[in-house]
Each structure stands twice: as C-alpha cells, then as structure tokens.
C-alpha cells in the first residue's frame, strides 16, 4: 500500500505535472493496451513495423543528434543485424532467440569499425564517408550471391513468435525497453559527455575526456540497437533482403530523425509513429498509392519550413515554458514555477529559448 501511494505520488509530481511527460505515458499505455481493444491484423502489422523502425530511428539519434556524428549510413547496422541473424538461424540452425543477439553484436562490431574509420573525420566529411559503408556492403552482397542470396536476400526465416498479437507485443515491448534505455543513456552523465563532444570536441578533450573512446562506445551502442531492430524485422518479415542496406533506408532514418527533432530520442520515435503509418495509409488508396513517397516528401518539406528545428521541440515550446530562474520546464498555463516558485513570464525572449533548448 505504501509503495502504491509512493508510486502515485511520484507519478503525480514527476509525470503528470508536465504535459509532454503525460503524453509519453498515455502513448506507452495506449500502445500496450491497443490489441485488447482493437486487433485488426493489418493495423497491428503496420504498428509492429513502426515499433521496429522507431528503435532504428532512436538509435540514429543517439549517434547523430547527441554526439553530432551525423551518420548517413545507418542502414549498415540495420542490414548487418538482419543478415547476421538471418544467416545464423538459417545456415547454423540456431534458435532465432539467440541469433538476434548475435545480430546486435555483429552490428555493434560494425559500428565500432565504422567509428574507428571515422575517428578523425568531422562534420560533412563524416556524413559523406559513412554513406559509403552500407554501399560497400551492398556491393559485396551482390558479388557473392551464393552466400547472401543476391537480390532476393535470405528468405524462409522462422518467426520468433506466432500470431499477430504476439508479434506486436514483442516489437512493442522491445521498442519501449530499447527507447527508454537509449533515453536513460542520453540523460545520464554519459549523455552529457556526448553533448560536450558534439558542441566542442576540442574543449571536451581539454577537459580530460577521452573523446575517441566515447565516440567508439556510442557508435557501438547505437549500432547494436539498430542491429537489434534489423534482426527483429528480418524475423518478422521472414526475409533479410538487400533493401535493408539501401541508401533509401539511410536517408529515411535521417528524415525521421530531423523531422522529429534531433538530440531528443523521443523526437525520431514520434516522427516514425507519424510518418510511417501515414505513408502506409496513403499507400492503401488506389490513386495515392503511386504518389505516397511524393506526398511524404512534400509533407516533410512543408513541416520543416514552419518548424525548422523539428516537430517535437516546436510542440514542446508551445505547451511548456522554461522557468527563467531554475531552467526547469513548466506547463504553459502555470503562473509560477513548480519547483522554485519564481514567476513565469508569459513571453520568453528568443535568447532564453535558445539557451533553454538542449
């Protein structure tokens, strides 16, 4: 009873005071409860895919948003996870429950490797060089079709669990665990170091931070999460094909990340949850079907014209205010800060907004 009351108090004081946190809670609860209310197989299928891509997008954000290593070849890790898990379970006959971890581990190795190759590159050089890695992988896959299945990929995989609802829960729970894990990492001391590396690597190094080691770690971590998502997707679709390595997927994740707002973790997740079902939904119309990518791109362009920092920071600024004294976030309708009691100005100046944005 005490614990329950304690939990409720925590919930009221920490979660319900801020609309953004309340929204996250509602969203997570809604995802978990959805199959009980509405279990249409098509909707569940789309949401399963959405959850897996959300892991992928969030892992990109840890690397690109937080650490500033804007990776244009994130599909490499996704594809490495998918292919490793597919080949290991098919050729060696290992249970897929083990091979997805192997997929994540191999992806982490590839992440470490690309991080190592990119240690001395920065900015645009890094982005453009990383674009090459999945394409090198793709070329090798096509050159050895006996091993990789060439254009068709590795098909005939076992699913992890059977049934639409079970698959949905698998994807959904893994997504919640991984995304909250990434968010916790980004919010920890480790995440602060990553911020420092992004903002000023020389200053970070001068403060005694071993920046190469941090960068390699974050490359491996992010790649592991992406590879995990790739492995899960391969087993869900029962095929690991070359499309997991294509430029289109690498660009897709960049679009998701920036559309949602970088350096937030939840931003890309929100973007995936909006954009992926939207494109699928548009694709279900007969006339729109061919135009869905076009509409997708136009929407992204228009939204960016009005919210150049991305969707979630814009929404957050609309519903929450920054306390001028203690820099904590408050619900927009409050007149005093919930923590320090200082009065909240109705209009926050632009300079403060810039300072307040992480």
């Amino acid at each position, binding site marked *: 009873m005490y614990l329950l009351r304690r939990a409720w108090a925590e919930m009221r004081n920490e979660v319900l005071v801020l609309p953004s946190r309340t929204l996250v809670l509602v969203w997570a609860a809604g995802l978990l409860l959805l199959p009980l209310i509405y279990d249409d197989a098509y909707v569940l299928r789309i949401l399963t895919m959405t959850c897996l891509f959300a892991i992928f997008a969030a892992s990109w954000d840890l690397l690109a948003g937080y650490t500033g290593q*804007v990776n244009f070849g994130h599909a490499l890790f996704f594809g490495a996870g998918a292919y490793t898990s597919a080949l290991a379970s098919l050729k060696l006959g290992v249970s897929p429950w083990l091979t997805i971890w192997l997929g994540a581990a191999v992806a982490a190795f590839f992440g470490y490797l690309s991080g190592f*190759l990119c240690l*001395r*590159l*920065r*900015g*645009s*050089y890094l*982005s*453009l*060089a990383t*674009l*090459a*890695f999945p*394409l*090198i*992988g*793709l*070329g*090798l896959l*096509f*050159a050895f079709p006996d091993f990789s299945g060439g254009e068709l990929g590795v098909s005939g995989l076992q699913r992890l669990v059977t049934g639409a609802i079970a698959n949905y829960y698998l994807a959904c729970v893994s997504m919640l665990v991984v995304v909250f894990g990434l968010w916790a990492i980004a919010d920890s001391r480790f995440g602060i170091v990553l911020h420092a590396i992004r903002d*000023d*690597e*020389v200053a970070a190094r001068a403060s005694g931070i071993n920046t190469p080691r941090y960068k390699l770690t974050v490359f491996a971590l992010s790649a592991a999460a992406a590879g995990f998502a790739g492995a899960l997707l391969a087993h869900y679709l029962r095929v690991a094909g070359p499309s997991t390595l294509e*430029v289109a997927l690498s*660009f897709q994740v*960049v*679009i998701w990340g*920036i*559309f949602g707002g*970088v350096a937030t973790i939840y931003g890309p997740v929100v973007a995936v949850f909006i954009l992926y079902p939207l494109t699928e939904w548009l694709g279900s119309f007969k006339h729109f079907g*061919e*135009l869905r*990518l*076009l509409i*997708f*791109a*136009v929407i*992204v*362009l228009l939204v*960016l*014209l009005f919210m*150049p*920092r991305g969707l979630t920071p814009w929404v957050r600024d609309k519903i929450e205010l920054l306390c001028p004294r203690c820099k904590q976030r408050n619900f927009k309708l409050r007149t005093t800060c919930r923590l320090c009691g200082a009065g909240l100005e109705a209009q926050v100046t632009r300079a403060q907004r810039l300072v307040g944005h992480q």
Partner: protein
Amino acid sequence: MLQDILVTGLVNGGVYALLAIGFSLIFGVARIVNIAHTAFYMLAAYCFYTLLTRTGIGFTLSGVISVVAVTLLSLVCYRLVIEPVREHESAVLISTIALGLIFQELMLASYGGNFLGVPSTIEGVMRLGGVAIPYQRLLILVVAAVMLAATWFFLYRTRVGLAIRATANDLEVANLMGMNVHRMAMVTVAFSVGLAAIAGVVATPVTSIHPFMWLDPLVTMLAIVVLGGLGSLKGSIIGALVIAYVEAITVFTLPEGAHLKGAVALGIMVAVLLARPEGLFGVAFEEER
C-alpha cells in the same frame, strides 16, 4: 581491353567531374550539402528526352532549353525551400533529400519506371590507334573539357568568381567586405546546377533514363568530392578521374565487376580518408567553433 578502360575512364571521369565540381562549389560557398544535385542531372536528362522525342526541335536547341529550364528551376527551389531554413543546417540537409525524392517521384508518376533511351546525338565512330571511339563519347569528353575550362575561367578570371572564392574562403569577412553573400550563394547554385544539367544532357545518349538514375551518380559524386577534398576544384577533377578509372578497371578485369565497382571505388575513398582526413587536396579545416 586497355583501350576500353582508358576511354571509359576518361569519359565517365568527365561527367563525374562536372557533377562533383558543382556539388563542391555549392558546399564551399553556401555550406549546403546538396543531396538533390544529381536529381537535377536526372531532370535535365528527362527534359532533354521529352523535348527531343515530343517536339522535334533538334539536339542543340533541346539541350540548351533543358539546361536553362533546370537552372531556373534550381533557383526557384533554392528560394522557396532552402533559403527559409538556411540557418538550420539539418533542416537544409533533409530539405535537399526531400527535393530529390520529390523529383524522383514526380518523374516516376509522369513517365513510369521504364528505362528510356535517347538516340545518339552524333552517329559514327572515330578510329584512333586501333580503338573505336563513338563520337558521342568524344562529344561528352569535349563538352566536359570545355565546361571545366569555362569553370576555371569563371572562378579565376572574373570578378564574380573572385567574390565566390572569397565567400567560400571566409563567409563573414566576405560579407564585411561588401559582397552580397546571398546573391553569391544564388549565383553558385545556378552555376553548379547548370553544370549538372549539362552533364545530364550530354551523358543521356550513353546511359538510360529512369527515375532512380540519380542515386548511383550521387554516391559516386560524394565519394569523389570527399576523396578530392570538399571545396577543392583540382581535387574534384583528380578525384573524378581516379574514381572513374578505378570503376572502369574493376568492371573490365574482375568477375562480378559490375556489382563490385561501387564497393571498390568507395573502398578507395575510405582508404584515402584514413590517411588524409581532409581528402587529397582539401584544406585542413581549422576547427570551426
């Protein structure tokens, strides 16, 4: 085989150099990583194809109209889409990606996904030391050489070129010295896209036109630019030749070479970056803080 490698490498190198120089210029002057650059190349090819097959106004006129139209289109895109978000680097990045996708999908919707072909602008082959070179490829080579020379003249012998180089060198100081950096950015965008459009028009007869034709040259172009050093004219040309020859050698000598050519070219780029992180001729950037 040796002759094939020599000719293919040189011709592809010319096309790649036109693309890479434009991309490199835009990056240097306006700090825009223009992913849509090769999409303009694709648009020019489609435009050329349409004018040629539907109106019958001849090769030269079609080519000129295509180049001008695509250049104007690029200016419109720049004003409407890129300029409003110029301050936000990441927004610019995905705006250009979205632009590329939009062009791809528009072409897919209006022409379908079929491979289209344009007849050679000039028929016939030239025999040179026992190797037959189609005039079409020779034309590509000549146009590329002329355009490269024109670019050099424009950048190093005119006042606008001087201003562009100054802006690329140091945007703030150029601004303080009274150069209109916004106009310089626009001139650069127009000039660079014009180069890409010319490449698209002259290369169309030897390649096939389809909505996804912008992706392969995009990757190659990025590899060249990174290999040669961002913002370096000389680097772009040498990088283009290096990558084109590496691709040609891979295709003609290795089994499965057609699949591996991209991988080998990109592998070389990565190897160069490991040794020289700023590319072959790039200036080692002072840490921008």
